[in-house]
């Protein structure tokens, strides 16, 4: 049971790019779009997902002999909900501003498809070590996609990068409106949709090109 499929290290690497949850599997779009107008939001969300996914994967992997097929999904969801409650309370205690800013999107991790998909595909069939590496890889892939999107949106929208925590300005303050006006639309919902569409397009294009080059 444990020997089939890729090794833990391979699973870890696969989660980052070849099977990236957002860019390749198009899962978990809701938080990807909602929290990426600042880098802080993206990093906090990645941290929360990393915590929840790792804990849920490990726990589900530990209890996998006890799982009944018809109650599987309910057990996954309740496990995830417990860890999300812990993550939510931790954020409210230590990062109150981010907890306020992310608002309902932290509890919405419960219904994030990525975590349920990983529990179902990997953790309920694999030993703990594999499940752990898989969770870490998938979370890093998720974080990579979020940070890519948030960088574009924050730089174009506010002209900053980690503006609230570190105060880095990418575009100088006194820049004339004629040279560069901040793209307010990138902070608003439409910017999120369009930026993610272009990012997906770019990834698909790069993949197709790499494949064509390999075949040639």
């Amino acid at each position: 049971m444990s020997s089939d499929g890729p090794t833990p290290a391979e699973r870890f690497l696969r989660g980052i790019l070849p099977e990236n949850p957002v860019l390749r599997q198009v899962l978990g779009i809701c938080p990807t779009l909602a929290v990426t107008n600042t880098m802080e939001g993206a990093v906090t969300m990645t941290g929360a997902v990393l915590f929840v996914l790792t804990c849920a994967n490990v726990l589900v992997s530990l209890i996998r002999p006890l799982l009944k097929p018809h109650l599987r999904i309910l057990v996954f969801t309740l496990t995830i909900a417990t860890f999300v409650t812990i993550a939510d309370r931790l954020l409210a205690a230590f990062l109150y501003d981010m907890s306020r800013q992310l608002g309902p999107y932290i509890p919405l991790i419960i219904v994030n498809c990525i975590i349920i998909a990983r529990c179902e595909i990997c953790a309920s069939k694999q030993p703990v070590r594999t499940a752990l590496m898989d969770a870490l890889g998938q979370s890093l892939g998720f974080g990579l996609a979020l940070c890519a999107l948030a960088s574009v949106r924050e730089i174009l929208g506010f002209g900053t990068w980690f503006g609230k925590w570190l105060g880095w300005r990418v575009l100088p303050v006194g820049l004339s409106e004629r040279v560069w006006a901040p793209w307010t639309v990138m902070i608003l919902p439409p910017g999120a949709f369009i930026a993610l569409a272009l990012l997906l397009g770019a990834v698909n294009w790069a993949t197709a090109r790499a494949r064509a080059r390999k075949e040639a």
Partner: protein
Amino acid sequence: MSYLSTVLLLAISSALINNMVFHFFVGCCPFIGVSRRVDMAFGMGAAVTFVVTVAAFLSWTITWFVLAPGAPLTTAVWRWLRPPSSATPDLSILCYLVYIFVIAWAVQLVEMYIRKFFPSLYKAFGVFLPLITTNCVILFVCLEIMKHVGPIPGSVPDPWRLDKALIYAVCAGLGFMLAIVVMAGLREELELCDVPAPLKGPGITLAIAGILALAFLGFTGMDANLAKRFQSSALPEGVAASTNPPTHAP
């Protein structure tokens, strides 16, 4: 402001201005996954509206009577267990667990009910019904109701009663249905278009969603202006307020 206009404002703002998909980004997975044909999109939208109403009813009841700090049922049990205590019981930390359980239960219930009494509808909904358990719209509406019932006592000046919670839920569901049906209509036409290869599938769908979101931005501020209009034109009070307690907008 009269009861009727408060309700109307709540309905418009949850369905159009703060549209689930285009403003809060919730329900994006079915929005991209199931929006290939109009009839499927309509079925999904209808199923979500139905389940969200049931879930909103259940979650409001549980929040109001059990989960909220100082809720009547919990307080009664608390007093019975340890009479001399003066602390208010607070179960709101359990809300995520309870909501997801309620949603899963409601989806099961709706599925069994439809399978028994409307077999043709059950066949039409197909796999969507179980999938709704993990639909963000439902949980989001439950969380929004909790926010307005008040996680902290006194934090909400005018807590939502059941009527407002239900109106919010129905209109949120209808807003989701509107979004997904519009999207499906556009995607049916898109079958005939020459889309650049890398953008095929989710890419072009998201791009169109972006343009639609831009259109929905046009509704921003409509609620404030409507509220002003309602107040100045002074709708005849008591049309609906005679039976329901008049509510005061903040």
